[in-house]
């Protein structure tokens, strides 16, 4: 038995020594690699900065002529610059990447066996905003790995080709869908031309698809779709979709949204929907919404009353007057008695106080 312990001790001592040595070796080799990369990247980085300083008009040929090993060292910096640049400088840098064969390489890597390589390639194509990569990136939306699909969606958003809208919507309709918020953001990036597709998708059988399209339509300011959205608000069978419809109507801010939102505020509707409707009526900016909102200020559901009070605050003078009326009315009734404010008055006081603070903030900012 003791001999076994002795052997184990010897083995352990060996592994401990190797591990300690490995820490030193890893540190040394990393520092050496960093020094090499820094040396290689120094000249290309200077050239990149000069190129950007010249707004991409001069220095492109020098960047293309940089040897491959030096360019690889500077490539993360160049890709980071791509994301930050706009206009001529961006186009100029994209041209440099294209002349260096980055697009060809990335397109080839979209079919790599490694999911990391596929995702990295999709990221590069998105950074380059390469329209001809759209069909290949759309194919990646059915990749078996979620992380690749996510990068493909993001890349399609950066490219902004509306023809990808249906494929992105289809990527939502699967058992392991792309994240809804990412899909929404991407659909918005496709621009107003995607509105027709999004509006048509409001009849999609998948609730997640309808919710995403509603959010995207709201961010795109698709005022032409108000009627369809109002129909979703009243008829959809999924609460989350109806909540999205209410929020979207608020964002669109058209007068025709007033009636469906007021209907959604009624007591028979689910609380999350009523709270969303109250918030949306505040976003709408229509003074005509004041009576409906005042009516629910004393609602038993905190979220509804809270949203209604702050919606009134956001409506401006008409809403503020209504809030004051509620508070004044209650103060007159109390006539100095030290009782707590009722729900309606308490919410109204909170909203009025916030209005006062926000007014001060605006004045301060203006000064």
């Amino acid at each position, binding site marked *: *038995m*003791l001999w076994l*312990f*002795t052997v*184990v*001790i010897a083995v*352990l*001592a060996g*592994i*401990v020594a190797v*591990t*300690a040595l*490995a*820490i030193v070796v*890893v*540190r040394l080799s*990393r520092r050496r690699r960093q020094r090499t990369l820094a040396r290689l990247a120094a000249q290309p980085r200077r050239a990149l900065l000069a190129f950007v300083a010249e707004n991409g008009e001069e220095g492109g040929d020098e960047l293309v002529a940089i040897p491959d090993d030096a360019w690889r060292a500077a490539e*993360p910096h160049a*890709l980071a610059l791509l*994301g930050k640049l706009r206009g001529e400088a961006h186009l100029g840098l994209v041209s440099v990447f294209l002349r260096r064969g980055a697009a060809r390489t990335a397109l080839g890597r979209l079919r790599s066996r490694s999911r*990391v390589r596929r*995702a*990295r390639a*999709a*990221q590069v194509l998105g950074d380059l905003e390469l329209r001809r990569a759209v069909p290949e990136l759309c194919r990646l939306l059915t990749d078996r790995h*979620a*992380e690749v699909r*996510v*990068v493909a969606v*993001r890349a399609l958003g950066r490219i902004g080709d509306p023809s990808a809208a249906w494929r992105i919507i289809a990527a939502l309709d699967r058992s392991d869908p792309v*994240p*809804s*918020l*990412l899909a*929404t*953001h991407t659909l918005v990036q496709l621009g107003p031309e995607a509105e027709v597709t999004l509006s048509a998708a409001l009849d999609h059988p998948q609730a997640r698809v309808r919710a995403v399209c509603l*959010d995207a339509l709201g*961010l795109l300011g698709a005022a032409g779709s108000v009627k369809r959205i109002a129909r979703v608000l009243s008829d959809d069978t999924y609460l989350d979709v109806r909540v999205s419809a209410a929020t979207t109507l608020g964002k669109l801010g058209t007068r025709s949204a007033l009636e469906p939102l007021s209907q959604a505020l009624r007591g028979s509707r689910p609380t999350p929907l009523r709270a969303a409707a109250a918030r949306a009526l505040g976003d709408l900016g229509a003074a005509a919404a004041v009576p409906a909102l005042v009516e629910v200020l004393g609602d038993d559901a*905190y*979220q509804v*009353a*809270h949203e209604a009070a702050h919606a009134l605050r956001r409506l401006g003078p008409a809403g503020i007057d209504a809030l004051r009326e509620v508070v004044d009315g209650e103060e007159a009734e109390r006539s100095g008695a030290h009782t707590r404010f009722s*729900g309606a008055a*308490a*919410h109204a*006081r*909170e909203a009025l*106080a*916030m209005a006062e*603070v*926000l007014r*001060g*903030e605006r004045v*301060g900012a203006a000064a």
Partner: protein
Amino acid sequence: MSEGIVREILRGTDLAIFGYFVALNSSYLVLMVMAGLEFARHLRRVPFAGADDMFRSPLTLPVSVIVPAHNEGASIVAAVQAMTALRYPRYEVVVVDDGSSDDTFEQLRAHFDLVEVPRVVPSEVPYRSQVLSVHVARANPQTLTVVRKTNGGKADALNVGINLARHPLVCMVDADSVLDPDALLSVAKPFGDDPLRVAACGGVVRIANGCRVVGGRVVDVRMPRQWLVRVQVVEYLRAFLMGRTGWSRLGGLVVISGAFGVFRRDLVVAVGGLDPETIGEDAELVVRLHHHLRETRRHDYRVIFVAEPVSWSEAPASLRVLGRQRRRWHRGIAEILGKHRRMILNPRYGRIGLLALPYYVLFELLAPFVELAAVVLLPLGLWIGAVDVGFAWRFVLVAYGYGLLVSLVSLFIEEVSFHRYPRWSDMARGVAAAVLENFGYRQILAVWQIAGVLGAVRGRQAVWGAMQRQGFGGDVDSPEMVGAGRG
């Protein structure tokens, strides 16, 4: 005859203890391998992780950062300043002053020009104290809210913060934490990537003692000056960074530090918020979330851990404070495991019930008892002749040598992956601390931890630990489950 039986029992017990140490350290090694694989996976994906896209997106889920504070006057302004300057598109900071008797609130009021607003405080999650007043920063009313309430404990303070939180994600942060600028972005990112399944996400906590902090940011990472804290640095690497990452990869994470964790607000509300009766309220919340989600969604949810960037916290620099902290932590473990004992070995709760919680019983709750038993029984065996000297020194060398190896592996993985300690001297001190923790530190830790378990059995009331913060160098007193890793 009876002397012979005693000797045999002692000999058998010593062998069993030896087997326990081997199993314990092997389990740590497995978790570290898991963590190493996860770090490699994470680092390969950084170029296309989309952090900048998340920062730019108008749809990124907004976060309410809840900061419970109790007598934090010395550091609260700097902490809140740093928290209001994080890199995240939309978030608010809700500071809950839990009946401080020092100038915590006055400091905040003076610095942020607070103005009182008559907020209606809902009771979506129960709280037992009284909210005295709610204030917002005059210059930034949508970003900073400060609540004054009567003292009710950390969990109660967090519950009030959750009630006042306006956003769908809530991030719980200790008032003495220093967050990396991208910390919120990283820890909230999984919710954007997998919004339907991610229920909670914990961030790593590292030790800030010795580091240079400028403007609420850690700008120069260094090893602390005191050996007591250096040992804790190694311990944090092994238990928090590696251990939790390993558990996250195994799908069995049951601890998200109260010092830095993000939760879906609706789920926290659904389970009733934090339990003010438990010392380890942060870990208890996670176990309760598992309980709730396993029963309602079966397996379709995730509780995960991200290893970078980080939240930096002070570690205790004195034995007295460290002892108090560890007694509380281990008492927390005992209370949580006692409260949720029906989940243990229950197949209904999947990996949590069959793997994670039994592990915590076997290798966290019982570990200090075994450690102390070894310290007592091995010399006793030697004294009565049940164990010979040759066996004894080999026993000690193998048991503690294996523990040392586990610590060195964690330092190696840190060096390969995040290499936060750039100085050679700091790395050497880390290796030395890994050796030194075997001489006295682990043994005294075991004593404190046993005292913590006994405290749980006696069931005294849970209260805030007495805070003694003086910027960096004071006390950290938020309950944690820490796998100490034993020799």
